[in-house]
């Protein structure tokens, strides 16, 4: 009996000790972003605490979400359905249209209009044009779906030691075009059976670079239809396929980062997010170079971005707007950028300077990323189409192209028919 009583008392103590969210006069705002590692979690936690300390009447609760591969989106979608999602959260740029069209995120235009310190031109124009798109084509209402947390762009991460061994010039310079790029890749791949000249991953932006650099585009000008049914697509894809078929590239679909870090790949195309991992793990001399200029004759890149948005069901919309303006301030973005993984979404000189000064002493050519972002095609949320489905169909067919079961010409001839049903405008 004594034991039973002790267990009951202990159980009661444990239950009673569970702290509950304190109800009070203070407004509590929950916010979440998708960090890629513990260092980012620490930076965002510090940022949250800094803002919290300077903001009377508002208590911030930062909830680090799972990483890209650890259910960030699954948890968020479930919470949105259950009505328990945070007041402010981050979503990838490609998701903005779906969240906005579904009424999940708040139109912040009225709050921005009432905020004298907000200037839309402080941010990169590409993301802002999507963040101000009204999914209702018949409506003139001004909208603002959020503010970009940060941006990123691709670069060529190169292994300088392999370049030296192969006796080819380091990438970059005015004549850094596909011819030099292909020659360098071939020369490096001849260094050994397990050495490759080039590597990239298989998601849309990677093969998209080849298509864009040849002068084609995923979509038409107003993003209401597929834009890949042209000769430039064939040219771009054929060049990429030839490179892969020649054996100079890490086999299609393989994660190229581990072999690059193992010193087996000469050039690896990836975003700024790969910089901290490369710094930590690459045991060779390396740096970054711009993407080579393709047949279009113009520098090409992507401008990746994600945005802080406000839950449509938040009880504190004004405070939520205030929070995202504080989270996207140059100071906070600079602190995050100092980790090396992110580029500020503000194109103001002070924000760019903060980024260019990041990772001092490493010798990394940070300007490659800002230059890439300046010419980058913005990652596009499709307001008039089902991007996940289109991405799936594009990806399925591109894999067939790289595996040889479909030619680039067949791809260009048929891909737009295959995705036509997934565009809503005009159907």
């Amino acid at each position: 009996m004594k034991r039973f009583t002790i267990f009951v008392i202990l159980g009661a103590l444990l239950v009673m000790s569970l702290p509950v969210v304190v109800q009070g006069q203070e407004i509590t705002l929950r916010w979440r972003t998708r960090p890629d590692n513990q260092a980012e979690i620490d930076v965002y936690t510090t940022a949250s605490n800094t803002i919290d300390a300077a903001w009377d009447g508002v208590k911030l609760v930062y909830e680090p979400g799972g990483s890209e591969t650890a259910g960030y989106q699954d948890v968020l979608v479930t919470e949105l359905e259950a009505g328990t999602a945070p007041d402010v959260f981050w979503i990838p740029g490609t998701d903005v249209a779906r969240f906005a069209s579904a009424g999940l995120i708040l139109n912040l235009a009225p709050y921005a209009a009432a905020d004298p310190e907000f200037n839309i031109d402080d941010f990169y124009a590409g993301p802002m044009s999507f963040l101000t798109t009204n999914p209702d084509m018949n409506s003139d209402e001004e909208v603002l779906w959020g503010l970009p947390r940060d941006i990123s762009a691709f670069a060529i991460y190169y292994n300088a030691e392999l370049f030296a061994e192969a006796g080819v010039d380091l990438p970059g310079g005015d004549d850094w075009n596909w011819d030099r790029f292909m020659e360098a890749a071939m020369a490096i791949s001849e260094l050994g059976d397990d050495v490759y000249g080039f590597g990239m991953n298989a998601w849309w932006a990677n093969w998209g670079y080849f298509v864009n650099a040849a002068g084609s585009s995923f979509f038409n000008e107003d993003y209401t239809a597929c834009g890949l049914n042209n000769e430039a697509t064939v040219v771009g894809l054929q060049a990429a396929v030839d490179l892969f078929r020649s054996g100079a590239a890490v086999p299609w679909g393989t994660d190229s980062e581990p072999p690059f870090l193992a010193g087996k790949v000469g050039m690896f195309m990836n975003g700024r997010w790969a910089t901290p991992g490369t710094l930590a793990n690459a045991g060779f001399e390396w740096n970054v170079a711009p993407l080579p200029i393709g047949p279009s004759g113009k520098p090409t890149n992507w401008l990746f971005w994600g945005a802080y948005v406000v839950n449509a069901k938040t009880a504190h919309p004004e405070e939520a707007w205030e929070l995202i303006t504080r989270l996207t301030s140059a100071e906070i973005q600079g602190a995050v950028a100092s980790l090396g993984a992110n580029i500020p979404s503000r194109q103001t000189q002070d924000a760019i300077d903060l980024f260019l000064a990041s990772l001092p002493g490493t010798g990394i050519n940070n300007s490659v990323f800002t230059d890439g972002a300046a010419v980058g095609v913005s990652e596009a949320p499709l307001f008039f189409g089902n991007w996940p489905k289109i991405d799936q169909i594009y990806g399925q067919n591109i894999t067939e192209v790289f595996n040889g079961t479909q030619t680039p010409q067949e791809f260009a001839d048929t891909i737009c028919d295959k995705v036509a049903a997934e565009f809503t405008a005009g159907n």
Partner: protein
Amino acid sequence: MASLVRRSPRLSPQIFIPIAHLWNVILALVCISASVNIWGLSDFGNLGRPVQVFAAVVVLVPVVIALYISVGLLLHSLRKNPSGWLPKGHQTRYAAMVFYYVGMVLCAAALVETWAIFDGFEFLVNGFMANAWLGYGFALAYVLSWLSGRTFLPETLKRTLRYASLVTGFGTLIILLAASDFVGGMTSILSTYRQFNVIALTIAILVFAFLATQFLLHGEHFGERPHERTSWQGWLLLSPNIIGFMIFFAGPLLLSFYLSFTNSTVGRTPEFIGLQNYIDLMTLEFQTQTNLADPPQRALSFGFNVLGTLELGNTRYVLGAKDPLFWLSLRNTLLFCLLLVPLGVLPALGLSVVLNSSLPGVKIFRAIYFLPSVAAVVGTALIWRWLYDPVIGFYNYIITSVVNFLNTLGLNVVDPQIQWLTDPNVVLFSIVFLAAWQILGYNTVLFLAGLQGIPKQLYEAAQIDGANRWQQFLNVTLPMLSPTTFFVLITTIVTGLQVFNEPYGLFPARPIPVNATTSVFYLYNAGFFQFRFGYASAIAWVLFVIIFGITFLQFRFNRSNAYE
């Protein structure tokens, strides 16, 4: 449990039965009021009008049960012995026990939710983790307690150590609770008692518990027989599982069935669209094409994509589908199952025979082989991704080493350089190998249990008849293992048809290769990446029908063949 029952207070039926009647009336009024409220709500959590109506009707079920109990109690008190559907005494008591017990559990769940205790767990864990070093206090308490039990120590020292152990243990607990905001948590819980619903739920729990206990204690009043007492005790022990099943499995199951007939998506109230999801999922189109220079896609109607083609002479036959990936994922799943069954069952059978022997260290090997089954799939899949890497992976390293060795012997062998996770012809095998490795240990344990249940006399008799080891295995082991084999086959096939974790873990980048897309992964993709909950529900139900059909056929087939 029996001692607990004996010591609990018993009240006269003349007291608690009127309370039960009164409580039934209150419950009925509350439920009717709740039903009317639900019916009139303008928004029912984005679930749609049919769910709202269903919920309004379900809320009335307690009214019917309360009425049934009250009528039963009245008839029992009037010494009537009703016939037909009218409740008899012991039936009334069972209904009351279950009704009040379930009511208590549901109210308790609602109360802890209102206390926000589920959020509190997170804070508590954070508090414990932040002060994890305090855990040494428990270790110290244990050491002191252990020392106090040593016989070589003097009694006074033992007593002192015992007290020191208690003080250290409880002191650590109190400090840990204090560090985890014990006072704040208690104050917060107490502060919720300013809300009417918290007070009402607490009272409801007490009344439900009181009535359930009284009906439980007064079995003889309702003519309970001894075997019936053990019966309700069994049901009581099963009740957490049953209630959990109803709330967390049966409920969502019904909801998903409803959603499969709607256009449910995130943030929107679903609209009923009949069989449209099933039509989109299953619709096929068959066309012929005589101009072979045209791509097959051109032969199909708008909205259809190519699923397969066949060229015979100057004619191309094109099979299209509205959702070809669904069919491909189904094909992948069935193929996965076909490969998993032999790879996951036959080695397990062989291994279990080896592990059933009395070889030295065999228990360690049993544990080692079982380890993959208890390891997290996503974690092991990440390791397998590295093993499968075509450039720096272990498997290709081994293959290349073997090829190089063979070539030094003068054989001209070409290194296949297998693209484990990208070659469309290989990728499904890669997933199967991982799944088979994972399931092998589990199946081995099942076979091992089956082997250990085979009577030794059968082997002795076989030996006397002159059977060798292989003949014993064929004529004794295999037939006697058939119930286990049947179970292993069923669970392996169902596991195979539901495969999700392996492709999810092996391919962190989305979308994943087509030949690695299984039906459940496709379902998940439709729900969480495309936000098509209605469509995903339809996929789930189609898959359910397929799994049910295959399992049903297996049961029919094995019933006549299994050696019981």
